[in-house]
């Protein structure tokens, strides 16, 4: 799948800016999406991104599953970050909302806001169609890969 990158060149993008606390009472997925990234970027929706690229510790803070839900419902297929906070990571995978993909500093530096990229989790590559360059992504640990392939935790059969 190819699509446009929305890049936030910063670390520690927390769940409070991804979906502010006042909206935690909302459980309608489409309505949650309208508030995605409200604490950080009011123009997020107009950018029509498919991928978010960000720095270290993406999704730190609360356990609110609203965070990957709001991003997923906004059209985000994957977040490519230098690292992820643990609950955001497992919520994204276990609920099958989006792919949390770890990239290295070089790849991070080489992807710019607005680039068109394509992610292939079979070959563990990300192709930057804008610059015509290809980079490696960190392979998923086995358990994560198996849950992704199963379409989420409820489809997964423990070995």
């Amino acid at each position, binding site marked *: 799948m190819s699509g446009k990158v929305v890049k936030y060149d910063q670390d*520690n993008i927390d769940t409070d800016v991804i979906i502010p*606390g*006042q909206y935690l009472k909302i*459980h309608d997925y489409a309505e949650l999406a309208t508030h995605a990234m409200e*604490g950080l970027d009011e123009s997020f929706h107009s950018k029509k991104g498919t991928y978010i690229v960000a720095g270290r510790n993406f999704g730190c803070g609360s356990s609110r599953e609203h965070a990957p839900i709001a991003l997923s419902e906004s059209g985000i297929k994957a977040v490519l970050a230098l*690292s992820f*906070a643990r609950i955001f990571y497992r*919520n994204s995978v*276990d609920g099958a909302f989006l792919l949390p993909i770890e990239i290295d500093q070089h790849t991070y530096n080489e992807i710019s806001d607005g680039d068109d990229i394509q992610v292939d989790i079979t070959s563990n590559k990300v192709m930057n169609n804008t610059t015509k360059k290809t980079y490696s992504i960190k392979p998923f640990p086995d358990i994560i890969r198996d849950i992704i392939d199963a379409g989420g*935790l409820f489809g997964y059969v423990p070995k």
Partner: protein
Amino acid sequence: MNLVEKILARASKRDSVSPGDVIFADVDKAMLHDVSGPGVIKVFEKLKKKGIKTDKLWNPSKVWVAEDHFVPSAEKISAQNIVKLSKFTKSYGIQRHYKYGMGQYGICHSLSHEEALVLPGEVYVGGDSHTNTTGALGAFACGLGHTDMAYVLLHGRIWFRVPETILFKISGSLPKSVSAKDVILRIIGDIGTDGGAYRTMQFAGDTVSNMSVEDRLTLCNMTTEAGAKNGIVSADNKTIQYLTERGASSISPIYQDDDAEYSDVYEYDAESLVPVVAEPYSPENVTPVSEAPTEDLDKAYIGSCTGAKYEDLVAATRILKGRKVKIRTEVLPATISIYRRAVEGGLVSTLMESGAMVGPPTCGACCGAHMGVLADKEVCISTTNRNFPGRMGHVTSRTYLASPAVAAASAVTGRITHPEDLD
């Protein structure tokens, strides 16, 4: 094996586990609140549409439910969520539902210890990131999202990657005015908001042994802010006494082996620690109170699972006794049981005498939801655990995280103040 490895080996029915192993652990206790509860209900609805059975929980007697984030209901959606949650607990036979306005209720993490709902050696998961708090009782306590909690409710188990453990060994006597909150803020300042990521943060040493159970709860509460999977303190006689006083029986703690291994060991000299604040907008922006900015504050907040336990209220009241607050000051005891003791012990009248408002238990203002959110550019000093942009209200508002004593001293002067600098 170390403490967490021993607990997870027992829970996964293995002779031993090592960091990096992926296991399915049997869950001993599970918690939902008025945000994660409706979240789980939503997951159940999705599962039903896929033909997956959701008509029976694995064990309703091991599940308990708190109303804390959006009570008292400020508007219709929150009110409706409470109705939805009540129908859910009733239909699934969950007896322990701590309801607002019906005796004991309060912040889920505070109920976990006030009601002795979690015991040493247990695997406890909750639909809230600060579930880590309860690791202070010697349990493996870990926060999960809605899908994972739905899975736990239906299957009674959940996958974990066995974490590496970082040991924080703290030795010596804490100076006057230095509290557990200052200790954990100092640690987060040192290791950063991902310094404990995916790992266990375990606290030990004579300082921790000499701490009250409530102080240990403060330490473990904020391991979440360092990204940790869980925080833990080995149970001791104090833990057992604390839980027994609250009605627990059949306590059988698990202890680490003599040859327990840790991925890192950090040593702290308690006597060198000072009162600190975490400046906006991150819990890792830690500065000694003596070097903190001198800007005018608009509000002091003494509340939350981190900073509104009984001893937190005692610490704040000691400072506010005989003094008047200069800025609006809100004190929200974490549970009704704490509130009641604060009334009976005379704390509430002392606090009200100072001008502070004492209100009902709620997570409301801590997470910027209701019950006293901050306006544009307002500045707050707070005993809570997070100060991200917009956390306590308007995205331009700013929060300093502090101990109850520092928050109370700052309420008196309207600026960040060392408790010993008051007249």
